[in-house]
């Protein structure tokens, strides 16, 4: 059991890390999102190994859905139609690598230098049940807040992204009042009046 678990963990973590790394090494966004999904699924499976069936599965499913959405998004909105063209857009690369390595090394060091708690979960414990009790008991308020947050997120996301509303184009007139009535609003404005430009190689 132990050996198999260890082997599975090794394999899954390798997959998680490698695919995670590949996310930023591929030149297609769609591919990147599928790689990310892979990483998530690997982590979800590790969680299953860690005796967290509910969370593990939730992760797997949620992320699968989420990555689909992401891929869809890229196809729908982004400058890279179909998201299939090769592309690689990075900045402050050295620094980013350094930061990543630093974060990894630092966290690892902290982990190694810390006297970690050791209190294994009882394999037979009704973990899902416990979670349910927690959610509707002790941590009720947190759960409720999370619910409100999701509601607020939906409202916000809809407001920001919807193209048209009940009264026509949703964003028409959605700007500050003019400095004089009917005039232009005060303050700085984008140089090209809102035009961005793309950074293709």
């Amino acid at each position, binding site marked *: 059991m132990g050996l198999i678990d260890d082997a599975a963990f090794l394999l899954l973590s390798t997959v998680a890390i490698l695919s995670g790394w590949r996310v930023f090494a591929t030149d297609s966004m769609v591919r990147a999102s599928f790689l990310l999904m892979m990483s998530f699924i690997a982590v979800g499976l590790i969680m299953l190994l860690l005796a967290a069936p509910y969370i593990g599965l939730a992760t797997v499913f949620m992320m699968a859905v989420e990555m689909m959405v992401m891929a869809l998004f890229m196809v729908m909105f982004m400058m890279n139609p179909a998201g299939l063209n090769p592309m690689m857009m990075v900045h402050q690369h050295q620094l980013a690598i350094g930061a990543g390595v630093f974060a990894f090394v*630092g966290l690892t060091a902290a982990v190694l230098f810390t006297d970690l708690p050791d209190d294994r979960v009882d394999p037979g414990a009704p973990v899902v049940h416990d979670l349910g009790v927690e959610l509707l008991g002790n941590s009720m308020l947190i759960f409720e807040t999370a619910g409100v*947050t999701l509601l*607020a997120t939906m409202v916000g996301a809809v407001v920001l992204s919807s193209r048209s509303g009940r009264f026509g184009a949703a964003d*028409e007139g959605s700007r*500050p*009042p*003019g400095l004089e009535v009917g005039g232009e*609003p005060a*303050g700085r*404005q984008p140089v090209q009046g809102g035009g961005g430009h793309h950074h293709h190689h």
Partner: protein
Amino acid sequence: MPLGDILPEIAVLLTAVAVLLAATFLPRDRQAWCAWLALVGIAVSLLLCTMQVGSSRLTFSGVWALDGASTWARLMILATTAVALGLSPDWVKTDRRHGEFYAVLLFSCLGAMALAGASDLMQVVMGALLSSVTGYTLAAYHRDWGTSVEAGMKYFLVGALANTVMVTGVVLMLGMAGTTDFAKMETALGAGASAPLLMLGFGLVVVGLAFKLGAVPAHAWMPDVAEAAPVPAAAFLTVAPKIGAAIALARLVDLFPTDAFAIRPVIAVLSVLTMTLGNLAALWQDDVRRLIGWSSVSQSGYALMAVTVVGLTEQAIPALLFFLLGYAAANLAAFAVVGHLRGRTDRRDYAGLAATRPVAATILVLSFLSLVGIPPLAGFVGKLELFVATIEGGYAWLAIVAIANTVASLFYYLRVIGPLSFGKAEGSQPQILGRWSSACMTIGGASIVVLGLAAGTLLALFQTASLLPVTAS
């Protein structure tokens, strides 16, 4: 389930939902009704919250703190929301979906309140998250205005990283302390074990809260939002989340025993960096809104002074509360003036305002002087309390740094006040937004003065304000 303990929040939530529904069904020219509806909700909530004054207990299995700090902070947040709501209708009325604006504002208010009352790291995370997502939305609400969406996007990007960092920190702290419940954590930390991973987690949580607070190193959004978000949103976002986060951070710092962990000096350094950076960056600012934004950063630094000495002196919590109150009043008044003047923001455009719009000019001057800490305005009493607390807490050097910063800050406020008072107006009289902005402005200006003069009463109330789970020794 002690629902009674969160009645004010429930009131806000229900109002938000009601506003949302109303926004969906009301005809376009009646969308402003949503604002009044929201105001009524806030009023009810304020009333309910007032009834909680004096209570000091943990509820919802220790997740929610009903103590002086929380109650007063939530009252301030509600009042802030009310002012922002009052400013809003005239400002966003050209927007076709401004009904939702009020709803999001209410949700955001809820988030800040959740932060202020949170007595559990997970609740802190949720509060921060709720406050953040609504904040992004508010900042980017002018979807047809380039800088507004830019500000929202930047706010989001900084916030997303900060929240991620915070969540990581919370996980680490949970792992090391075995709990996220403050009361239990206090016991765990009382043992004095300072594992690297725990400190790491704490540091990351501090960064996450620094984002809400607008403190270094996650302050970058503050000037952008102040400059480009809709003015009511800017007014709200530079104030309300800060109040919540300051209380949350104070609560967190208070968990650590005063002798075993050297976290307070670190907070002090953060405070110094924040106030200095904010002031320096504001020094040559020509855009008044941005200037207020940077000054808000520096004010976060001052607020951190009180957080530094939490647990070291009884004055820390009264100082923090009153400082936040004074800051909120002054900042809201300043934004109200800007809003009232239809977003007028170039420093040079303010020339001669004292002659053309004397009331607005007076209130702006008052609010700036209050932010400097000129007596007897509210800001003065706040700073006084801060100085008393820091000196009593053994951080006199911090007070000296704050003083140097205050002097520097006077310089840039005067860069606005000067032309405003002494300059010659060019062109016609500046146009204004409407009666509601005028009312907000007046309320803000009056409260700066009244809060200063009536400081005694309030401070006496704050004096008894407890901070659970640890009461200041």
